[in-house]
């Protein structure tokens, strides 16, 4: 049947795109690492060049190559994104499990914490925490990590509450199994798929928020290569017609975010048994 062939190639396309996304993002991180020195090289003989063959993204007012700078900045953003997303997801996982293991009072407190974090506007809380932690690398990481766990935690907690009512968990309790056994052996395996997709879907958020807070001046310090810094510096030159200073870094940032989003959704679909045979 032709129908089956089509669905088969759909899965293949999905995997190819997934591989491309992973390779692309990996390359950005790796290039950013080896170009760290190069991004700082200034050369006033080539300042303010529009995009050309040798400098595909153009150069800035100090003659720095914008392509190299953008990649280094994005690499930094992605690394911070990975770190903060992992910390956030870890917090969310622990909160979700704690709601299961530690009884009603802990569950109530966790529920309140989640509502609290979700209730305050994201950016505001992010700026507050980053500022309180002294800005810079540590401030950004603390800010993003401490603001992004709540929605995933709520998802996991909901799952935990449902699992608590499931027959096999109740049977395990009657068989004399303790809370930790149940949390570790019965709940954790069921939370894993949500956790993995939640973690991957956190990346784009974390990256974007890192860039925005740096752009606003509450994040990484100006001498560090970061997309947020590049964009905020370019603001001053935009009016003089240096459009490439903002356009390409901005596009690359959007591309990275979209790719992460795509990876998350694909992983979600591949893990979900409902579409397993597509």
């Amino acid at each position, binding site marked *: 049947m032709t129908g089956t062939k089509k669905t088969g190639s759909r899965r293949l396309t999905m995997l190819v795109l997934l591989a491309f996304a992973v390779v692309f993002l990996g390359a950005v991180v790796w290039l950013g690492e080896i170009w760290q020195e190069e991004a700082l090289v200034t050369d006033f003989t080539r300042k303010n060049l529009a995009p050309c063959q040798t400098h595909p993204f153009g150069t800035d007012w100090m003659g720095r190559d914008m392509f190299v700078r953008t990649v280094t900045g994005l690499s930094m953003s992605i690394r911070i994104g990975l770190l903060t997303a992992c910390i956030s997801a870890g917090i969310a996982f622990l909160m979700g499990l704690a709601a299961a293991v530690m009884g009603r009072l802990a569950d109530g407190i966790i529920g309140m914490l989640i509502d609290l974090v979700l209730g305050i506007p994201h950016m505001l809380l992010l700026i507050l925490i980053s500022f309180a932690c002294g800005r810079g690398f540590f401030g950004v990481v603390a800010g993003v990590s401490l603001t992004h766990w709540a929605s995933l935690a709520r998802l996991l907690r909901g799952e935990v509450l449902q699992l608590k009512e499931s027959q096999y968990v*109740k049977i395990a309790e009657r068989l004399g199994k303790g809370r930790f056994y149940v949390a570790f052996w019965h709940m954790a395996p069921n939370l894993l798929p949500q956790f993995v997709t939640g973690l991957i879907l956190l990346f784009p958020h974390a990256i974007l928020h890192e860039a925005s807070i740096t752009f606003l001046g509450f994040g990484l310090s100006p001498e560090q290569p970061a997309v947020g810094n590049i964009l905020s510096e370019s603001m001053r030159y935009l009016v003089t017609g240096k459009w490439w200073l903002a356009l390409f870094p901005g596009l690359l940032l959007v591309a990275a975010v979209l790719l992460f989003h795509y990876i998350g959704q694909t992983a979600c679909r591949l893990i979900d048994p409902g579409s397993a045979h597509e």
Partner: protein
Amino acid sequence: MKLEAREVSFRYGSGGRRVLDRVSLTVESKEHIGLIAPSGFGKTTLLKLLAGYERPDSGEVLLDGRPLAEFEDYCPVQMIWQHPELSVNPRRRLKTVLLEADWEKEAKDRARIEGELGILDEWKERYPAEVSGGELQRFCIARALGRRTKILLADEITTMLDLVTQGEIWSFLRKELKQREIGLVAVSHSPKLLEKVCSRIVRLD
């Protein structure tokens, strides 16, 4: 051991319909009871109270004169449910179901029960979705028949299974329960089945 429900009443939630209204039932090890009641009587709910899954709103459930709630560790009253696929964690291999049973890992009885229930070694490595309902129910039964189990509650345990499996399961249960002097309270839609398996039929209405 003697399991006793004294005038238990129960309703789900606070505003729900009263499912059980002052029901009493006594069962001893060695005794095999078949419960017959009209549909909607709340037979499953009664079994859940007897096994300690729910607490009665009024009345009490006593095991050897002690409230069932006091047995905090392993509950000597174990229940087998109608839907085996809901009774096992879908994300864990089936061997873990057997490991939850109340046996030492290398106990002879464990191996004997698995053998007599016809549990194959190859099934143990599979996930619940990869075996049939009948195969799954055998795992649930093996798990419920741990060392300290004294009374077994069976809620329509073979209703969803094919006849041959039903016959095998009840043949095994009758022999095993007799041999280990484990009490039984069984609910089934088939009066014929209860008649052949049980020593006493209790009609509730």
